């Protein structure tokens, strides 16, 4: 990391779903917790997300997914990140994620999963742990 040890995170809304309350309030919570937060805006393609993450030199990409498409989306993003040598960026996911999908997400390389209903504190603690 650079001169500061602040975690830089891109909160991103991939795909066509427009339910952004969760993404926005988590962005506000992470900012209040001292992280540097960039919010992607809606309807982002995975290419756009990778581009923003690279430009902004983030440590973490946080995807917010409500539509149920978290498995295919994460799988594809991880493949793309590997292809572009971005293995050092951690991928985390939040949204409407059934608990039974968490093992599969972790197996494919998602660093942490924060399903709806989890507290800000747990998210922040979980994210800090990734950098211990």
């Amino acid at each position, binding site marked *: 990391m650079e001169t500061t040890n602040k975690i830089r995170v891109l909160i991103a*809304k991939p*795909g*066509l*779903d*427009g*339910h*952004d*309350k969760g993404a*926005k*309030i988590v*962005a*506000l*919570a992470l*900012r209040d917790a001292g992280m540097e937060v960039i*919010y992607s*805006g*809606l*309807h982002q*393609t995975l290419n756009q997300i990778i581009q923003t993450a690279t430009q902004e030199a983030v440590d973490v990409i946080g995807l917010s997914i409500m*539509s*149920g*498409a978290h498995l*295919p*989306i994460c799988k594809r993003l991880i493949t793309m990140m590997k292809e572009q040598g971005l293995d050092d960026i951690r991928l985390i996911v939040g949204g*409407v994620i*059934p*608990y039974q999908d*968490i093992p599969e997400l972790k197996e494919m390389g998602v660093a942490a*999963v924060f*399903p*709806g*209903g*989890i*507290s*800000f*504190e*747990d998210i922040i*603690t979980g994210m800090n742990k990734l950098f211990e």
Partner: protein
Amino acid sequence: MGVAKYTKDEKGAIKEVIYQSGIKVKPVYGPEDLEKAGFTYEQDLGAPGDYPFTRSLHPQSYRSRAWTTRQYTGFGTPEETNKRFKLMIANGQNGLNVAFDLPTQMGYDSDHPLAEGEVGRVGMAIDSLKDFETAFAEIPLDRIGSGLTINGVATIMMAMYQATAEKFGYSKDQISTTPQNDILKEMIGRGAWIFPVEHGVRLVGDSIEYAVKELPKSNPVSICGYHIRESGATPAQEIAYAFEIAKAYIDTVTARGIKPEDFVGRFSFNFNVYGNLWEQIAKFRAARKLWAKMLKTEYGVTDKKKLFLRGLFGGGGSGLTKEQPENNIMRSAYYALGAALSGAQTTALCSFDEAYTIPTPRSALLSLRTLEILMDEVGLRDTVDPLAGSYFIETLTLEMEEKIIEEMEEVQKWGGMTKSISEGFIQRKVSRQAYEYEKGLQSGEYRKVGIVPTSESGNRPEQETQKTDVELHEYNQEWAEKSKVNLIELRRTRNDKDVSDSLKALEKAARGTDNVMPYLVTCCHAYATVGEMAGVFRDVFGEWNEPEFY
């Protein structure tokens, strides 16, 4: 406790209650409260069915007719959706409320790269008229009205609905459709916008104008305070912002030389039922009154029926929890009670499992039964506006009216709704409130049964392994494949010249000032796809850039 702010003394007695809209509630109300507020029966209530309709739109309300139930339905292929429509109708549902998948909502065909993984997921996939013909097969379109939850491409789906009805031998004056068609609220919450604000509003204007002239039984716009509330607005803001959005649409249609009197009767609303019970009831009663007053005094509307605030009061999604999902069954029943006590004309409930999945037939029917129990079993049809005259409810209704007016004035200070959204004023305010509320919920300042405040829960690793009995709705990859195969077949068999001619005519209308609706109907009959029609609009109008939200 609940969504309101409660202050307690050391013994646990409640000292102060402040509702989300900012109203302080007293421990006891009496006649002096109504006197202080200058309450009179004639001016503030009137008989049910009389101006200002605080009590009810109709003199007999549920005595003459129970509410209409419209559970939100649609998933997978048009065939699957058609089966579920028939199941819900066979079980007593008397209107449809159609869900579309995200590619359809965003104007992309099922084979577009951005549609991957989303085809048929959160609603049914529609590419062309063929799919509508399948989805509505054997549905009596002259008897069953359909709400279409579509916004960015609402004009296209309205045209599609008309074309389908015509194919089935109905005339356009027999059918009743209510597309959601509220693009401004999409820009505050829900996010299924495509085009820049001014073009989005123009399309809403086109559809209203067309419905006034050609679709006498259809309601071209359903203004949704609902999603604004879900995004973090207070109940007073929910109504205020919806009314300011309505004014933006009224202004755009009036600018075409059509009098408000000729079209405002076609507006309907979609409002939320979650939150404090009394605050919701007061909200709906105040909203009916304020809408009628506003149309009468500001827009000179005189016909009584055109002053009605008609709509769906239901849903309640934000009130439901992922924790202990079965509690949502009870929560929804109480929300529905609030809707019934407010005289909701049309209703629907979120299903208890929606934090996990698209509702299964079991959970969707459970919602329908909850609504039936209120009407048919426990007595909500017995008498009109049973809470009228309550010192508390009437005082609260007056206070809600004042709060709503205050919130509307703030929007006017910002320069009206269109500007407030373009500049992001509303989005920032609502997101900030949502964040503050969520913090309060987590700290225990607001109490929600089943949610343990962070301060008491310590580290909660059990969350990750928590098991529930929710049965998950399965996403079927074959739906996408089937839609793609159908598209290939469609493109092979349709008349290419009809398609390209109709799309060219549409483009010309979009670039000029012609109403796009008749051109869209022609495109639909020619089997142009949703992606092709929306593509024309994308080329002509461009896409919206969201303002920064913090």
